[in-house]
C-alpha cells in the first residue's frame, strides 16, 4: 500500500513515454542515418558524443536572479561548448514574457536548427513555440511546460511532486513508525504551481506513514524572506522533529534563523541541491541532514537532446530510433551516505 501512489505514477509516465515513442517511430521513419534497420541496430549506432553535422541551437531562459536559475544557464552553455558540432545562440535571460517571445521569433527568423526554451511562463510561450515547430524547428521545452503538446518536440522536466515525495519518505523513514512527530514545512512562492506540487507530494508521502504537516509557512526563494518566515515558524512550533525547506537558496536564511533562535532539536531536509547544502550535509555539523535534488542540469540535457534531434540521431543508450518525447528527471534524496555521488552536479548559490 505504502508505495502505490509513486509507483503508479512511474508506471503512468513510463506508459506515456512508451506510447509516445511507439507512435513516433511508427510514423517517422525518415530520419534514419543508415542504421534504422531492425531492433538491435540502434545499440550499435555509436556513441552520441561523436561529432556530427554542425547545428545551431537557440537557447532562452528566464533571468538568472536565483542560484538555481543561474546554474541552469551556466550548465547549458558549458554543455554546448563541450560539443564541437554545436553553435549556441544564447539569448540574454529575461523575466519579461514579451521579450522572451521576441527572442524565439528571432530564432525562427534566423532559422536555427533547434530551440531550447525554459519559459518564464509556460502558457505564455506556447503560441510562439508552436509557430517555431510549424516552421520546422524542433523546440525542446525545459522545466516549465507549455500548454499544448504540439508546441514541443521533446520536454525535459524536473519532478516537483517527486521532490515532496522524496523528502516525505525520508522523514517517514527517520520517524521510524512514530505518528506524533511534529513536521514543519517552509515552502517557496505559494502561488506557483511548482510549490503546490512539491507540497502535495510531501503531504502524500507523509500520509503514507501516518504523519502530517503541523506547521507550514511560505517564503519567496530569497535569503531574506527565508529568514523571516523561519523566524516566525520557529516561534509557532516550540518543538519540531522534522523540517522540510523547499529551496536551498532561501535555506541560507532559514539556517540563519535557526542559528539565531539557537534551535537544534530537529532534522532538516533541504530542496534543490545547492553545493553549500551538500557541503554542510557532508560535514554533518548542523541540523541539515539531507536535501532533495531538483536538477540544475535540465538546460544542459535540453542542449544534448536538441543536438541529437537536429542531427537526426538516436539516443545511443536506447533501442528506440527517435529521441523520446518526455524526459523526466528523478528527485533523489541526498544524505551523508551518498552525497559524493551528487556533489559534482550541485550548483553554487
Amino acid at each position, binding site marked *: 500500500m505504502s508505495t502505490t501512489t509513486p509507483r503508479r505514477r512511474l508506471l503512468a509516465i513510463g506508459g506515456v513515454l512508451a506510447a509516445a515513442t511507439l507512435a513516433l517511430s511508427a510514423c517517422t521513419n525518415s530520419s534514419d542515418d543508415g542504421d534504422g534497420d531492425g531492433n538491435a541496430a540502434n545499440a550499435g549506432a555509436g556513441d552520441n558524443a561523436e561529432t556530427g553535422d554542425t547545428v545551431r541551437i537557440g537557447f532562452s531562459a528566464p533571468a538568472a536572479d536565483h542560484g538555481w536559475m543561474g546554474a541552469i544557464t551556466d550548465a547549458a552553455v558549458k554543455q554546448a561548448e563541450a560539443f564541437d558540432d554545436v553553435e549556441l545562440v544564447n539569448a540574454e535571460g529575461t523575466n519579461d514574457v514579451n521579450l522572451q517571445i521576441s527572442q524565439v521569433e528571432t530564432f525562427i527568423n534566423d532559422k536555427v536548427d533547434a530551440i531550447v526554451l525554459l519559459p518564464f511562463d509556460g502558457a505564455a510561450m506556447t503560441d510562439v513555440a508552436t509557430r517555431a515547430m510549424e516552421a520546422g524547428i524542433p523546440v525542446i521545452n525545459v522545466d516549465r511546460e507549455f500548454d499544448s503538446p504540439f508546441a514541443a518536440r521533446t520536454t525535459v522536466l524536473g519532478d516537483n511532486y517527486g521532490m515532496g515525495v522524496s523528502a516525505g519518505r525520508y522523514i517517514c523513514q527517520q520517524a521510524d513508525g512514530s505518528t506524533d512527530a511534529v513536521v514543519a514545512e517552509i515552502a517557496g512562492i*505559494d502561488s506557483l504551481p511548482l510549490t503546490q506540487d512539491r507540497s502535495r507530494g510531501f503531504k502524500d508521502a507523509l500520509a503514507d506513514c501516518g504523519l502530517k504537516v503541523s506547521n507550514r509557512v511560505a517564503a519567496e526563494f530569497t535569503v531574506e*524572506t527565508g529568514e*523571516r518566515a523561519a523566524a516566525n*515558524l520557529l*516561534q509557532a512550533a516550540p518543538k519540531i522533529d522534522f523540517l522540510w525547506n523547499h529551496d536551498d537558496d532561501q535555506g541560507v536564511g532559514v539556517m540563519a534563523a535557526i542559528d539565531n533562535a539557537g534551535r537544534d532539536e530537529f532534522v532538516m531536509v533541504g530542496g534543490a541541491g545547492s553545493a553549500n547544502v551538500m557541503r554542510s550535509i557532508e560535514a554533518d555539523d548542523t541540523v541539515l541532514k539531507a536535501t532533495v535534488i531538483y536538477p540544475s542540469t535540465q538546460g544542459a540535457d535540453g542542449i544534448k537532446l536538441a543536438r541529437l534531434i537536429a542531427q537526426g540521431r538516436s539516443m545511443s543508450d536506447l533501442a528506440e530510433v527517435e529521441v523520446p518525447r518526455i524526459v523526466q528527471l528523478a528527485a533523489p534524496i541526498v544524505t551523508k551516505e551518498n552525497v559524493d555521488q551528487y556533489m559534482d552536479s550541485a550548483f553554487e548559490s
Partner: protein
Amino acid sequence: MTGSVQPTTAAPQKRARSLGVARNLGLVVALVLLCVVGLVTAGDRFASTNNIITVLSLASAIGVVAIGMTFVITGGGIDLSVGAIVALSSVWASTTGTQAMAGDVGWIVIATTAIGVGIACGVINGVLIAYGKIVPFIATLAMLASARGLAEILADRKTQIIRDQGFRDALGARPFGVPVIVFVFAAVVVAGWFLLNRTTFGRRTFAVGGNTEAARLAGIKVQRHTVYLYALLGATCGLAAVMLMSRTQTGSSTHGLMWELDAIAAVVIGGTLLSGGRGTVVGTLLGVLIFTTLTNVFTLNNLSTSVQAVAKGVIIVAAVLLQQRLANRNT
C-alpha cells in the same frame, strides 16, 4: 494637523499630544487588538519573551527604513528605491574585497561601507530630484532598477556569506538577552522622533513638504534640504542592510525585495500624509509593529500566506478608517 506646526510655546497638553499618544490612538487600539487575538489564539507561544524578541528583531531592519521614509514623505517626496539600496549596500559590504579589509581593520569596515553606499545612492536620488528636476517617482524608480542591477553584477547573482567573525560577534551580541539590532532600531526611533519634532531640520522638513514655495520664500534652501532628506533615507537603508546582514549572515542582490511597498505602507498607515507636510515617527513605528505582529500571529495560527495578504489589506483600511474617526474626535 498637530504635527505640521510646532508652536514654540507648547502647552504641556499639546506636547503630550505631539508625543503621539492621542494622535495615534487608532493604531494603538489596532495593535492591542492584534495582541489580544495573538494571546487568545496562541497563548504562551505569543506572549513568550522569545516570541516578542523575534517580532522586534523582524521589525528592526524594515522599521529603520520606514523611519527614513517618514522624513522623505513628510518632505513631500517618495522613494521607491529603498529595497534596491538595501540590496546594493549589503552586497557591496560583503564582497570578498570588503571582507578582506574588514579582516585587517575590523568589522566596522563592513558597517561603514554599507551605510556609505546607502548615503551615496540617497545623494544621487536627491540631486536628481532637487537639481535635475526629475519627479521623485521617476528618479527613484530609475535607482530601483540600476541599484539592484549593480548589486547583481557585483554579487554575480550569488549569495555572499559573511565570514568576518568580528562582525558576527559585534552585531550578534545579545545584551540583556535582546539582540543588538533591536537596540539600534530603538535608538533610530528616538533619534528620528527628536530630529523631526525638536530641531530646525524637522521644522524645515514640514515646511518643505507642506508648501515648497512658502518654504523657499521663508529662506529655506529647499533644494539642499531635499538632498539631505534622501541622503538620510539612504543612510537608514545602509543601516538596515547592516542589520539584515547580521540576521542572515549574507549579502544578496535579492535582499529587500518589495520593501519599498512595505515601508511606504507602514508610513502611510502611521498617519504621515502621502502629499507631504505632516508626518509622525511614532505612527510609523506603530505601523511597522502592526505589520510584523500580524505576520507573526498568522504564522502562530498556521494560516496561509493568501489569508495573510487579505487580512493585511483589510487591516490597512480598518486602521486608516479608525485613525480618521479618532483623530476627528480628538481635534
